C-alpha cells in the first residue's frame, strides 16, 4: 500500500494505492487520524489505485467516517474500481459513505 497526503487550501487529498489489509490498516488509520487531528475537515480520497480492501481496511474507513461526521466534516471517496465498489455495495457501506464518480465531483461534493 502507498499513501500520499497533500494538504490543499480547501481540502486534503489522499491517494491510496495497492492493498489495504490487516498488515497495514493500523498504519493507515494513524496517518488519517493525524491529518484530522491536524485540523482537516474535508478529505477527498482518490481510490483509483486501490485494488483490494479487507474488512480491516473497511473498519479504518468506518472509523474515519464516524470521526468526520462527529466533527461535521466531509469524507468523500472517488474513482472506486468495480471490485471495490462491489465490496462497498455488499457491505452496505455505499449507503453511509459519500461516493463520487471522479475527483472533481468529490472536491465539490
Amino acid at each position, binding site marked *: 500500500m502507498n499513501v500520499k497526503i497533500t494538504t490543499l487550501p480547501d481540502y486534503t487529498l489522499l491517494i491510496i494505492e495497492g492493498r489495504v489489509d490487516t498488515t497495514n*490498516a493500523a498504519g493507515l488509520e494513524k496517518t488519517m487520524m493525524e491529518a484530522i487531528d491536524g485540523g482537516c475537515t474535508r478529505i477527498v480520497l482518490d481510490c483509483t489505485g486501490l485494488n483490494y480492501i479487507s*474488512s480491516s481496511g*473497511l473498519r479504518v474507513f468506518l472509523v474515519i467516517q464516524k470521526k468526520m461526521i462527529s466533527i461535521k466534516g466531509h469524507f468523500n471517496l472517488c474513482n472506486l474500481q468495480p471490485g471495490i465498489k462491489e465490496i462497498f455495495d455488499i457491505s*452496505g457501506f455505499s449507503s453511509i459513505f459519500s461516493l463520487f464518480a471522479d475527483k472533481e465531483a468529490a472536491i465539490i461534493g
Partner: protein
Amino acid sequence: MDDKLNVKMKIMIVDDEVDLEPMIRQKFRKQIRDGVYDFVFAHNGLEALAKLIEQPEIRLILSDINMPEMDGLTLLSKLKELKSPWLKTVIVSAYGDMENIRTAMNRGAFDFLTKPISFDDLEITINKTIEEITMIWKSMQEHDQLISIQQDLQTAREIQQAILPKTFPPFPNRNEFSIFASMTPAKEVGGDFFDFFLIDKDRLGFVIGDVSGKGVSAAIFMAVSRTLIRATGIKGISTEECMSYVNKLLCSESVSCMFVTVFYGILSTSTGEIEYVNAGHNPPYVLSGNSINRVDMTGGIILGCIDDFNYSSKKLKLNPGDSLFLFTDGVTEAINRNDEMYGEESLIAFLKEYSSHPIEEVVKESNLSVTRFSDGTPQSDDITLLAVRYHGLL
C-alpha cells in the same frame, strides 16, 4: 519460574580458608545489613553442592580452586551438569595461574578473580555478575510469558471451535433437509463463525458471519455476535427483527468500530421457503441443478456500525434438491503464489460441477479446491463454508 530472585539473591563463597568468612562479613557488613548481599559459606566442593540443594536461592558462587574433598574445577563440572541458566560461578585462583584459569573458563566459569583478593574488585565482579544473572532471569521470564500467551491462544482456539456446532449430521431425525459447515481459521483464532438451530418443528435458523480483523479481538467479537444471534433468533422472531436487535446490541458493545458481516436465514422445512437478511455479507448462491444463482441483496449494512439501522428481509424458495451455499470472503480472496485470487468465477465453476453431490462433499471438496488453488501460499483469512439442502417432505 522462580520469582524470588528479585527479593533475595544469595552468594555462596567456597573456600577452605576459615578466616575468609569473618573477613567478608566485616568488609561487606553494610551491604549485608542493608540486605543487598546475603552470603553463604562452604569449605569444599562437596559441601557447596549440598548447600546449593538446601538453598536454591543461591545464584552466584565464588569458588577457590584448591580445596580438600572436591576442588573448584570439579565443582565447576558438577555445576555445569545442573544446566541452570542463572547460576554463575566466579573462580578465585592464585595470581598468574593461567592454566587453571583457562580450565575453569572452559568448564563454564563466568569470570575469575586472583589472590590476594582486592575487595573493590570483588565487589565490582559480584555486581557485574548479579546484573548478568538478573538479565538472564528477566529474559527467561519473558520467554515463559510468551509460551504462556501461546498456550492461551491455543485454549482460545479450542474454546472457539467448541462453540461452533461440530456434530454432523446435527439433526439425524430430520429428512427434509441436510446441513454441513466448516470453519478454518487463518491464525490460532479466527473471526468467522457459523451456526444453526431449530427454532421449532418447522423452522431451521442458520447463520454465517465474518468479523472485521483477525486474532483475539476478532474472536471475542465473534463469540459475542454468535451468542447474541442464537439467543435472539431462537425466540422465533423474524430475521429482520433479529438483525435489527442484534445490531443495536453490538453497536453498544462495539469498541473502536469492530463490525461483523452476517447472513441470517430461516428455512421453513415444510415449504423450502427461506426468509433472510443479508447484513453486509457476501451473497450466497442457490444451487439448482446446473444453475448457480446469487441470492438477492437485502440492502442491510454490516452489524455494529449504525445502531438505529432497520434491516429488511427477503424471501427465496428452495425446491426439493436445491441448496443454499454460504461462504466468507476467505474463500474467494484466497491467493496463490502469483498473488491471484480464487475469485467468484472459480467458486461458481466448482459449484456447477459439484451442485448435485451430497452436501457434505460440496463443503469438503470446496475447501480442497481452495487449498489446491493456494498451493502452499499461507492462508490469510479464515475460510468458512455452510451449505443447506432442501429435500422436501418425503
